[in-house]
């Protein structure tokens, strides 16, 4: 009896979140509308993330024609793409710029979704798949950083993998060995070498993109099924048709943003922001140049790791992950005003530490020394 009730509840939960009866051209396209209010601009962020993801796929496939995933040739093949392949520098820069812009849009999309309480029933699964997509995007960023096999990429990967191993010190008994095992599996060797590069290449071009496409498919399908969330406490009652009005407006934004991204990639090499010694081919016997850092979107965790005890950051990181996954239930009864304030604090922290993290680090370390 108890068993059948449980299954009944499960079935009800799933059927409410995936209402298959709504699968129709009429409900998903013809009748779908987008609410019109002061936060309507936030509805474009998901689409922009999708635009940058598409650029990532196209430029990534083009880079695959020339890239060599071997320790001996990876750096020179990237150099060959940049210096000798026609349009190679543009494609590579577009890939690098759009990866950063995609993560920026994804983070903004998540923040606005949270502030607008768009995760509430029956959109819990849409939110959870969004969190998984964020983690997958971070995994893509982390694995892609190693591929050019330059000083900053290899050394930052070493630091990243070492931090997995450090978790073992805080786990009891046999569990303490688990992080080291995970690190070894990811690394594929006793140190960051050819096996690591091969694994990261496979993760970056096959595993993560396939998972991402599958989960993204469900995420978009779920959005189409449930429609856009109202997003505000007092709806204006105004709305516009999803098709063709919102789609055309979306395409308008896409053309402006793509034009800006294209000109940026054409004129500003992404590498110009990194000191040149960090972009030299990785030399296992040479000295490690100072200034090894992860990509900017990991600064929110990198600087605290440099300044605070590891156990505290590991704890906070896991807590944050749990909060993100369980947000639809934790903040079920929280008002939009309170959610907006939480988002504001999170945004100030994230962008503050990303922009001023180094200055803050210098200030604190300067005081200590």
């Amino acid at each position: 009896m108890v068993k059948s009730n449980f299954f009944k509840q499960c079935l009800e939960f799933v059927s409410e979140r995936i209402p298959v009866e709504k699968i129709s051209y009429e409900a998903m396209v013809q009748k779908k509308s987008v609410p019109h209010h002061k936060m309507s601009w936030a509805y474009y962020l998901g689409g922009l993330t999708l635009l940058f993801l598409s650029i990532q796929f196209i430029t990534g496939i083009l880079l695959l024609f020339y890239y060599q995933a071997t320790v001996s040739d990876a750096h020179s093949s990237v150099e060959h793409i940049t210096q000798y392949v026609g349009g190679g520098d543009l494609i590579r820069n577009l890939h690098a710029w759009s990866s950063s812009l995609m993560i920026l849009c994804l983070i903004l999309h998540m923040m606005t979704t949270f502030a607008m309480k768009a995760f509430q029933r029956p959109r819990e699964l849409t939110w959870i798949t969004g969190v998984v997509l964020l983690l997958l995007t971070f995994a893509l960023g982390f694995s892609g950083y190693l591929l050019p096999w330059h000083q900053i990429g290899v050394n930052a990967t070493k630091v990243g993998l070492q931090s997995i191993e450090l978790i073992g010190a805080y786990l009891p008994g046999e569990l303490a060995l688990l992080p080291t095992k995970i690190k070894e599996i990811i690394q594929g060797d006793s140190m960051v070498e050819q096996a690591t590069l091969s694994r990261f290449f496979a993760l970056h071009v096959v595993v993560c993109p396939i998972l991402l496409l599958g989960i993204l498919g469900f995420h978009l399908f779920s959005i189409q099924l449930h429609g856009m969330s109202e997003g505000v406490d007092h709806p204006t009652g105004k709305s516009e048709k999803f098709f063709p009005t919102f789609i055309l407006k979306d395409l308008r934004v896409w053309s402006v943003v793509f034009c800006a991204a294209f000109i940026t990639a054409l004129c500003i090499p992404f590498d110009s922001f990194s000191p040149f010694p960090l972009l030299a081919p990785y030399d296992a016997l040479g000295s490690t140049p100072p200034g090894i850092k992860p990509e900017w979107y990991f600064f929110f965790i990198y600087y605290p790791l440099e300044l605070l005890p590891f156990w505290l950051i590991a704890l906070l990181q896991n807590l944050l992950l749990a909060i993100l996954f369980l947000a639809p239930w934790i903040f079920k009864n929280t008002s939009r005003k309170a959610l907006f304030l939480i988002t504001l604090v999170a945004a100030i922290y994230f962008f503050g530490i990303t922009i001023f993290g180094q200055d803050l680090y210098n200030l604190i370390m300067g005081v200590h020394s």
Partner: protein
Amino acid sequence: MKKASCAFILFLLLAMTSSNNANAFPEYQAWSQKHSKRTVNCAMCHAHGDGPEGSKPGQMDTLDADAQKRLEVARGAEKPGVHADNPILNEFGNYIVFKLGLEQVYKMRDDPSQLKQALGEESDHDGDGISDGEEFEDGTHPLNNQSGAPWKLFIQNLQKKWVMVAIILFIAITSLFGFKHLLRYSSKVD
């Protein structure tokens, strides 16, 4: 007598090691780093990022007989205008020696800020539009066209690639025009 001969041998050994010394000028690197607030290493002028001393490719201990000969010739390039193909220097390092001569390079160690002016505006080895002297000041690599002050590269590339910029702007503007009219048309249909 024994002491004197020991001292003579020690002197000879010192003289020999000093003649094998790489004569690096780290003052330039230190100045560039301080001025630009960017990480700069020996690879700006040298063949190896860790400098001339050592046993890695492009360093002193790995030079073959031919490279040793070229090194000796390069060390004699006291005055400007000598095409010295020094194996421990890169193209930019060799250009500095050609343009200024070792004597001048040695003198300017006390004030490396003079290097930009001494090299002039015309030398731009990587062709990124930023002169080598300016790249030295900015702490970016004079032989890598992807390395440069981002804003300066933006201006230079905008001038160089204006045709492509104009084409993409044209495409964006015509797209906007098209979408605007499609929106108008769709609202009329509704």
